């Protein structure tokens, strides 16, 4: 093989990674099949609706990828999305200015994330248990606050965040793309965030290598909380209401997408761009269900199966890794 060829190949691979290329090809194949099965698939409006629909999942999954990379898990993202959305809309209905209400929602997300992170990093409680508890508490609080009602009648300025368009494309899509680019760049290149790869691989060795393990654990959970809250803002403004059950099951789709995109349940691996492709794949499959008129009840089954398969393949891959070289 020519040296120059292998050199360019390896630098391309460093940039996007083998995993992402494979995932991209699967997405192209899935799209090709769908466009053969139904004429409605290959259509700009359909694409925009897929992109808008997946934007909340992408934003949540970015945070989840960070948490998986640092070696943890966050089951509370869906509930945090729901609760922060409810709190933001309640403040708006009480007449609080839009920027302040949004800021309050994001801060609440950060606070809940910080609580998760502190219990995990400082008191060494299993992240699964801590965030499972937070999941129940946050969801319960949303139900209590709303008594199960929809909170509508939100100010027009707020609705513009989720419903506004630039050049015919909804604003949440721009926001999602920008967040993916920023977090992908930071995770690869920004030393403090990049250090979470070391923490997730071997926290003891990371501590003795001078990496701030406890601090970055907490930061990861805070980011996960803030991003879930941001998704909550977009969702409530797009749908023009706050509702206690928003974000139900978001953690499950986010975990599946992260793992499909290259994150490992045992920590130390993860790619934001890969996660983006993971959400895209799930969104296309779900879009296929709708277009082909298959029962929505099957979607839950399929999503669950995809999660189990993705995590199972990840486990097998890790077992095999001892057998062959990178």
């Amino acid at each position, binding site marked *: 093989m020519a040296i120059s060829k292998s050199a360019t190949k390896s630098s391309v691979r*460093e940039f996007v990674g083998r995993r992402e290329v494979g995932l991209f090809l699967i997405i192209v194949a899935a799209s090709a099949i769908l466009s053969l099965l139904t004429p409605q698939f290959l259509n700009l409006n359909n694409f925009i609706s897929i992109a808008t629909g997946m934007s909340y999942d992408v934003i949540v999954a970015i945070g989840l990828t960070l948490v998986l990379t640092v070696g943890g898990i966050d089951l509370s993202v869906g509930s945090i999305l729901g609760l922060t959305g409810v709190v933001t809309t309640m403040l708006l209905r009480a007449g609080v200015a839009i920027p302040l209400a949004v800021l309050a929602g994001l801060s609440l997300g950060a606070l809940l994330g910080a609580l998760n992170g502190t219990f995990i990093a400082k008191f060494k409680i299993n992240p699964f248990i801590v965030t499972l508890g937070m999941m129940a508490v946050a969801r319960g609080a949303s139900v209590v606050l709303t008594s199960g009602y929809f909170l509508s009648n939100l100010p027009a300025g707020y609705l513009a965040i989720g419903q506004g368009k630039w050049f015919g494309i909804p604003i949440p899509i721009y926001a999602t793309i920008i967040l993916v680019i920023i977090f992908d760049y930071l995770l*690869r*290149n*920004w*030393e*403090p965030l*990049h*250090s979470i*790869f*070391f923490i997730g*691989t*071997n926290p*003891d*060795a*990371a*501590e*003795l*290598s*001078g*990496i*701030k393990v406890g601090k970055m654990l907490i930061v990861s959970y805070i980011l996960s909380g803030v991003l879930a809250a941001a998704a909550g803002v977009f969702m409530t403004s797009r749908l023009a209401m706050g509702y206690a059950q928003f974000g139900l099951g978001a953690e499950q789709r986010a975990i599946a997408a992260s793992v499909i995109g290259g994150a490992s349940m045992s920590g*130390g691996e993860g790619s934001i761009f890969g996660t983006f492709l993971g959400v895209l794949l799930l969104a296309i499959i779900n879009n296929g269900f709708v277009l082909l008129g298959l029962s929505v009840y099957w979607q839950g089954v399929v999503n669950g199966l995809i999660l189990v398969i993705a995590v199972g393949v990840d486990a097998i891959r890790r077992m095999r*890794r*001892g*057998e*062959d*070289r*990178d």
Partner: protein
Amino acid sequence: MVASVLKIKGISKSFGVHKVLHDIDLEIAKGEVHALIGENGAGKSTLMKIIGGIHRPDTGSIEVDGESVAFSNPQAAMAKGISLVHQELSLVPNLSIAQNVFSQREPTNWLGFVKWDELHKRTRELMERLGVDIDPATMVAELSVGIRQLVEIAKALSMDAKILVLDEPTSALSEKEVETLYRIVDDLKAAGVSIIFISHKLPEVFRISDRISVLRDGRMIGTVKAEDTDTDEIIHMMVGRSIEEMYPPRASSVGETVLSVEGLSRGDELSDLSFELKKGEILGFAGLVGSGRTETARAIFGADPVDAGTITLHGRTVKFKSALDAINHGVCYLTEDRKDLGLFLTKNVRTNIVSSSLKKFASQLGLLQHSGIEDTAKYYVQHVKLRPADDKPLVMNLSGGNQQKALLAKWLCADPQVLIVDEPTRGVDVGAKTEIHSHLRQLANSGVGVIVISSELPEILGLCDRVAVFNEGRITAVLDGEGTTQEDVMKYATM
């Protein structure tokens, strides 16, 4: 000659495109101690993992007691009486010693409940045979590497194997424990057990083995009777040339005090320790396993808290709150436990080398310069003569000795002012060991204060300018490296 219990013919094995074993033949006789030696990366552990059912060979056959076998997993090998003590320790840290030793084979009553009394009694007996008096309920996580190694051996002994493979069992043991191990090997041999023994320490190879087989670059060079050969011939077989096992010259002059420690105390582990480290010298920490050497290093490094004591660095009193704090002040510590505390096994060599100096590769804004990382990693790969000479393989796929070299590279890369190395040559071959010694001496000559913790007395005495002898959490003597004998050190270490 006695019948062979194990007969290997034509074994080859590749990992991807990399062929690590070529057409290996080996016969092990009943009741013999057979040493397998070769440089780091020669393929010794890989061959043993094939015998132990962990890897499958690409070609070749294995016979046990004349019966042809093909193991698909370690349990199958155990069922044929082969038990393996791995080079890399493989115990479960948050289970007790007893649970590890009898993992999956705990004695149970008719309801399937574990009979704890019996489990603990049998574990205690095994550990006592190895000369360790310890509560079998102790968590493995609390044990030193040396004791973990003994637990690993106890586990293999508990299986009543007829072929026992010991892959570098002594690399983490001190002299006293090694003597106990020799005794057990002699007993087992008398009972007809065959032992395959891997080690880089040639004196011990000659001490216990009947025959010696040498691997080089994945090829079997030959098998010789231990009584018919000598160190020079063996080294020649190993590397294809002769190597002088020589220590670098000692410091010609030492400068001012770099680090001084006074009255360091914690519980009953460390009591009132004081010593000084001078610029340009190598200070050795000698002593038995558990005498407080590692604890002292960790305390200085900020990894563990202390009750009392002052640490002075370049004339200024310091108190490191964390490893990060210490590293920022130029104080670095290479841990004895490379797998759990030192390396990121599932990451590549490059990532590992820069893991303790990431900040050096970041701009003011914290953005990493990946090309700088790559160049530096490549430089250190050459510098420590890593094999393969590549910064991309995952560290978990390196041979044990090469993992150790990668760990050294990681700390050299951090540009230390004071470097504490804990068992720096654990598992490295004769040639590489000499190289590591000369790296440490070069560091000292360039003005870095170096502390070497080692359980190998010849290494301590050959390399260090001064030796602090530890005994139950105290320093009982500080001796000159030159002219001191092993007996002198042992006297202070055990008095």
